């Protein structure tokens, strides 16, 4: 299927160029036939890239090992799920995948955006085409998924065993969906600047897109954490690795954007800042792809090194220069309409939230690039690791957590002392109670303690918001409490869905504090021998090595070690951890006959995990002492990790509530209400003046 794929990519290059150039000219000149042609180019581009993707998928599924990409990432024994996920396991495939999602989003944006923004659309199409053009060019000239080998190997090289995990099968697509969907808000921002339609129109047009990409990024990052936790076997989920940081950076700027854009909608402030944020998010998402794909910074993930890095670098530089010029030339149209009226207002709390988020992004970017920066300045690489990131980001993160609680409690514009008292009494009271309890218990971990106090504060603040909202509806409209709660969500899904997301974030923070209480033990045990470990919750765990078994599975040899785990003498689980040696097959037969296996990849470890909301029991089987049944184990107790995944779930639910299409109030009803209200208002006024 490589011929079809090659043709499709070539066509894609042509269509993307056409869309970018003709869309821009059509937009500037206002020529309907050019605009229409460019619009169709976006749809055609999606179709053509779809054809290319299908060709690669067919090549993968038919195991056409003559295609280099297929040979590199699959083998005969690879399960079908992972054969499909091999699509995005390698460089060339993930570029194609990126392009496919990008053109899909572009087509959806062209299709779904209301005609009221038609002035923006030619530019939106042009920008997305230009970005797609870059990716297609990178594929054609640097990493082509359709390259063939000069001969046909009997079996493929197989997929890296660490990528053979359900989390890894869906984590990259999710993260890519997040990265790529930033392009759409970005395209609207650029379109607003290019068409000089710099009112709030573009902000309204992208509202759902922004949230969509934010949710994808959040879910993608969380799945990445889960993958690292389950698969990498070091017992944690976040190592401040460059690749992880790269995914976190656009998340931070997008979070800042989500909040500051509300100030623009409500008050007409921060217009320039919002455009800068969305541009920054886009550049960081490209930068993230660049870091992942170029290996410019050494990282455990550091996938491949190739000249692809230069493509990205050139693209980044060109994009930066162009965006700087565009912004500069349009500055006069971006004057603020409102101004900050008080430091005690929701605007101010949002401004600080933005400052902290962007500050955090800067710190992480600086730390990630520090080896390069220090080499340029000092001539020697100085690296900073997790201690640096933890130390700097923890206070910032706690500040953000506090703002999560403060922001919703303060009114827009200006809050008076009396209503501050009314709003803050209960949440602060509860926080103080938690603080007192921690002090009485002589709690030692400072940051974890602060995090819990703030978590209590934020949770109570949000619950109070729900409580008062329901109460107000109950009083004003005479609705039952259940109906009032449902309507509360329905009428202002953005606000109340947002609160649900905040609750999810609180759960993440609770999960993060657990890392301060990790305890682990590395030990070699003969069968029947036991080791004990005290948990921070006061339990005592007993681990008994039960034995080792060896067997051959579909595409791997497995050595499994099993432990019996007891909490205070009562059995909680029997946990098995595996060492796997994957192999490929020298002959084209499935299953692979005895003696034809050839080992591929280094051995990998499958950690055994028993999880509940208090703590995870994390067992890693690290190896066997030669010719004995004595196993080397690492037992780790990870308190509260469960809350991180739980927070991810809550966040997703909140995001879906906000984005849910339709539903909500009908359009006519509020119009009627508004019309009636307007009439009443005029009457009242006239009485006053009469």
């Amino acid at each position, binding site marked *: 299927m490589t011929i079809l794929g090659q043709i499709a990519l070539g066509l894609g290059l042509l269509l993307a160029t056409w869309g970018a150039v003709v869309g821009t000219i059509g937009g500037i000149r206002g020529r309907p036939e050019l605009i229409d042609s460019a619009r169709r180019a976006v749809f055609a581009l999606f179709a053509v890239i779809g054809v290319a993707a299908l060709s690669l998928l067919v090549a993968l599924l038919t195991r056409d090992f003559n295609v280099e990409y297929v040979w590199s990432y699959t083998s005969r024994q690879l399960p079908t799920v992972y054969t499909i996920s091999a699509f995005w396991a390698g460089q060339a495939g993930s570029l194609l995948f990126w392009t496919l999602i990008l053109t899909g989003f572009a087509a959806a944006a062209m299709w779904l955006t209301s005609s009221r923004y038609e002035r923006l659309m030619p530019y939106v199409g042009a920008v997305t085409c230009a970005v797609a053009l870059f990716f297609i060019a990178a594929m054609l000239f640097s990493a082509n998924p359709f390259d063939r080998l000069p001969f046909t190997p009997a079996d493929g*090289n197989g997929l890296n065993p660490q990528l053979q995990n359900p989390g890894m099968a869906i984590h990259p697509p999710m993260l890519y969906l997040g990265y790529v969907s930033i392009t759409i808000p970005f395209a609207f921002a650029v379109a607003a600047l290019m068409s000089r339609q710099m009112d709030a129109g573009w902000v309204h047009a992208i509202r759902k897109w922004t949230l969509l990409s934010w949710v994808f990024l959040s879910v993608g990052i969380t799945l990445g954490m889960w993958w690292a936790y389950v698969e990498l076997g070091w017992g944690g989920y976040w190592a401040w690795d460059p690749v992880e940081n790269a995914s976190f950076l656009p998340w931070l700027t997008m979070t800042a954007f989500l909040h500051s854009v509300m100030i623009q909608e409500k008050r007409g402030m921060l217009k320039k800042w919002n455009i800068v944020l969305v541009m920054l998010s886009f550049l960081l998402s490209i930068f993230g792809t660049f870091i992942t794909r170029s290996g410019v910074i050494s990282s455990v993930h550091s996938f491949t090194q190739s000249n692809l890095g230069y493509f990205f670098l050139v693209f980044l530089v060109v994009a930066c220069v162009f965006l700087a010029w565009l912004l500069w030339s349009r500055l006069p149209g971006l004057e603020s309409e409102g101004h900050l009226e008080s430091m005690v207002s929701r605007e101010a709390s949002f401004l600080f939230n933005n400052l902290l988020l962007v*500050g955090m992004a800067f710190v992480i970017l600086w730390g990630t690039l520090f080896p390069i920066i220090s080499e340029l300045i000092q001539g020697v690489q100085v690296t900073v690791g997790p201690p640096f990131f933890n130390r*700097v980001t923890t206070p910032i993160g706690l500040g953000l957590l506090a703002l999560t609680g403060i922001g919703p409690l303060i009114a827009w514009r200006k809050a008076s002392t009396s209503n501050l008292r009314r709003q803050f009494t209960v949440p602060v009271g509860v926080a103080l109670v938690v603080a007192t309890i921690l002090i009485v218990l002589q709690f030692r971990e400072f940051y974890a303690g602060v995090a819990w106090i703030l978590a209590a504060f934020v949770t109570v603040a949000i619950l109070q918001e729900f409580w008062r909202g329901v109460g107000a509806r109950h009083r004003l409209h005479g609705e039952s409490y259940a109906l009032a709660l449902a309507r509360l969500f329905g009428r202002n899904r953005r606000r109340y869905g947002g609160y649900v997301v905040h609750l999810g974030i609180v759960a993440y923070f609770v999960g993060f504090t657990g890392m301060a209480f990790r305890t682990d033990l590395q030990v070699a045990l003969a069968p029947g021998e036991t080791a004990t470990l005290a948990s921070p919750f006061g339990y005592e765990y007993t681990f008994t090595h039960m034995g080792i078994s060896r067997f051959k599975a579909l595409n791997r040899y497995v050595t499994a070690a099993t432990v019996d785990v007891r909490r205070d003498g009562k059995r909680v689980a029997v946990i098995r951890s595996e060492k796997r040696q994957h192999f490929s097959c020298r002959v084209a037969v499935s299953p692979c006959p005895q003696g034809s296996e050839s080992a591929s990849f280094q051995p990998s470890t499958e950690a055994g995990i028993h999880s509940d909301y208090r703590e995870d029991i994390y067992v890693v089987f690290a190896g066997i002492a030669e010719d004995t049944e004595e196993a080397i184990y690492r037992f780790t107790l990870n308190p509260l990790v469960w809350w991180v995944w739980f927070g991810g779930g809550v966040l997703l639910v909140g995001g879906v509530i906000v984005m849910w299409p339709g539903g909500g109030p009908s359009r006519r009803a509020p119009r009627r209400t508004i019309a009636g209200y307007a009439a009443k208002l005029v009457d009242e006024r006239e009485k006053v003046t009469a």
Partner: protein
Amino acid sequence: MSPRAKFLLGAGVVVLTVGFLMAEGIKDTGVYFLTPSELAARVAGDSTMYDVGIRIGGNVANGSIDRHVASLTLKFEVTDGAVSYPVVYVGIVPDTFTEDVEVVVEGRLTRDGTIRATNVLAKCGSRYEAVPEGSQAST
């Protein structure tokens, strides 16, 4: 004082705090990332290089790995071809750790010229860079 000025003041405080945290963080936790040759060159001219945190990037020397299972102790040499240093590490190493593989050793250099490692990272690729079997035959 106008709200704007107040905000700018607050922002200034925040920025300075973050900047201070960052500078302190880098000073306290930043470590040199060196190859064995660079380390040798630095140690020759500067005795303060002993007993401070460093990271050494190189390859595991062939035939140098010595494991003692019961005490979880691992000894090996890290080399860049020209200079090599013995490394002692207690703990579990990643699966990818084998002979000749690229490693990053975190730890400190003791006066006797051994690196006491606190962490050993082995580089893994998403791709196992092997040459397809039969490629020699066909080319």
